[in-house]
C-alpha cells in the first residue's frame, strides 16, 4: 500500500472512531435521538428504551431493571412479533401469566381482567408497540421493515427455534415485582 492510501485509511478510521465515541446530547426516549443509532452496538440500548417507553406511556409504570436478586420466573406466556425487511427477526416478550394479567389490568385501568382474551390481546399489543418503537429508533428500519401482527403463546412446554447463527439480545425488568424479559433475535 502506498503512503497516500495509508494516510487516507488512517484518516477515515479516526473519523469513524470519533463519530462512534461522540456522546449524544439528545434526551433519552425520543424517537429522533434513537434514529441516530447506526450500529448494532446500540441495539440492546434502544430495545431497553423502547420497553421503558411503552410501559411508561401505555401501562403507566416506570420499570425497574431486573437484578440478580429479582425472583426467578417460569415463562408460561409469550408474545412474538416478526420483523421483516432490511432486518429480519423476532421481538419476544416472555413472562408469567400472572404478570401478563397484571399488565392487562393496568392498561385497562381495571382489576376485572379475567384469564382470557384481554390478557393475550394486551400482551400482544405491548410486544407490538415495543417492536414498533424499537424499529423507529434505528436508522433505516422505520421504513425499511414491516411488522407482523402479534402471536401469543400460552403454556410453558414449548421451545422456540429461530434464526440459527443470528444475533440475540435480551433485557430484563420487573413489573410490580414480577419479572419479565424482552428478546430480540435477528439477521440483517
Amino acid at each position, binding site marked *: 500500500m502506498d503512503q497516500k492510501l495509508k494516510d487516507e485509511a488512517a484518516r477515515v478510521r479516526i473519523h469513524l472512531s470519533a463519530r462512534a465515541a461522540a456522546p449524544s446530547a439528545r434526551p433519552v426516549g425520543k*424517537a429522533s435521538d434513537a434514529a441516530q443509532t447506526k450500529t448494532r452496538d446500540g441495539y440492546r440500548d434502544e430495545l431497553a428504551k423502547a420497553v421503558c*417507553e*411503552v410501559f411508561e406511556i*401505555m401501562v403507566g409504570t416506570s420499570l425497574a431493571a431486573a437484578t440478580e436478586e429479582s425472583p426467578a420466573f417460569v415463562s408460561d406466556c409469550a408474545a412474538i412479533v416478526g420483523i421483516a425487511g432490511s432486518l429480519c427477526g423476532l421481538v419476544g416478550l416472555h413472562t408469567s401469566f400472572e404478570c401478563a394479567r397484571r399488565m392487562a389490568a393496568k392498561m*385497562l385501568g381495571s382489576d376485572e381482567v379475567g384469564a382470557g382474551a384481554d390478557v393475550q*390481546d394486551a400482551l400482544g*399489543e405491548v410486544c407490538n*408497540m415495543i417492536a*414498533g418503537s424499537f424499529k423507529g429508533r434505528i436508522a433505516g428500519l*422505520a421504513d425499511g421493515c414491516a411488522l407482523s401482527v402479534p402471536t401469543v403463546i400460552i403454556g410453558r412446554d414449548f421451545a422456540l427455534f429461530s434464526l440459527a447463527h443470528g444475533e440475540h439480545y435480551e433485557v430484563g425488568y420487573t413489573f410490580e415485582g414480577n419479572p419479565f424479559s424482552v428478546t430480540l433475535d435477528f439477521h440483517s
Partner: protein
Amino acid sequence: MKPARVLIVDDSSVMRKIVGRSLRQAGLEILDILEASNGTEALSIARENSLDLILSDINMPLMDGLEFVRQLRSIEAAQQVPIIMITTEAGEAHVVQALSLGASGYIRKPFTPEQIKELVIPLLRG
C-alpha cells in the same frame, strides 16, 4: 362542538378500549363509540352510520388501515370524515402514504391522551 359519533378500528380489543378511554379523557363529548376489528368491518359501519371521526390502526387482518382509508374515501358520504391513523408503523413512507390516501392525521403508538386531544379537537371543530 356537537357530541361526536366515533368509529375506532383496531384488531386489538384492548387498544380499542384504550383509544375510547383516551377520547373521553380528552374531554370530548361522545355521542357514541362504534368499534371494528378490521377494515372490512369498518367499511360496513361507515356505510350504515353517519360518523364524525374515525381512528384506525394500520396493521390488521382481512383489510389493513391503508386500504380501508382508500376505499372509505370512495364513499361519497364519508369523504369528509376525519381519519386519524394510530399505529406502530411510524416510518415516513407510511405517514406519507396514509396522508396521500386521505388520512387527516397520524399518531404513533405508544400514545398519550394529550396527543389524541391535540389532534382530534381541531378536526372536530372543522
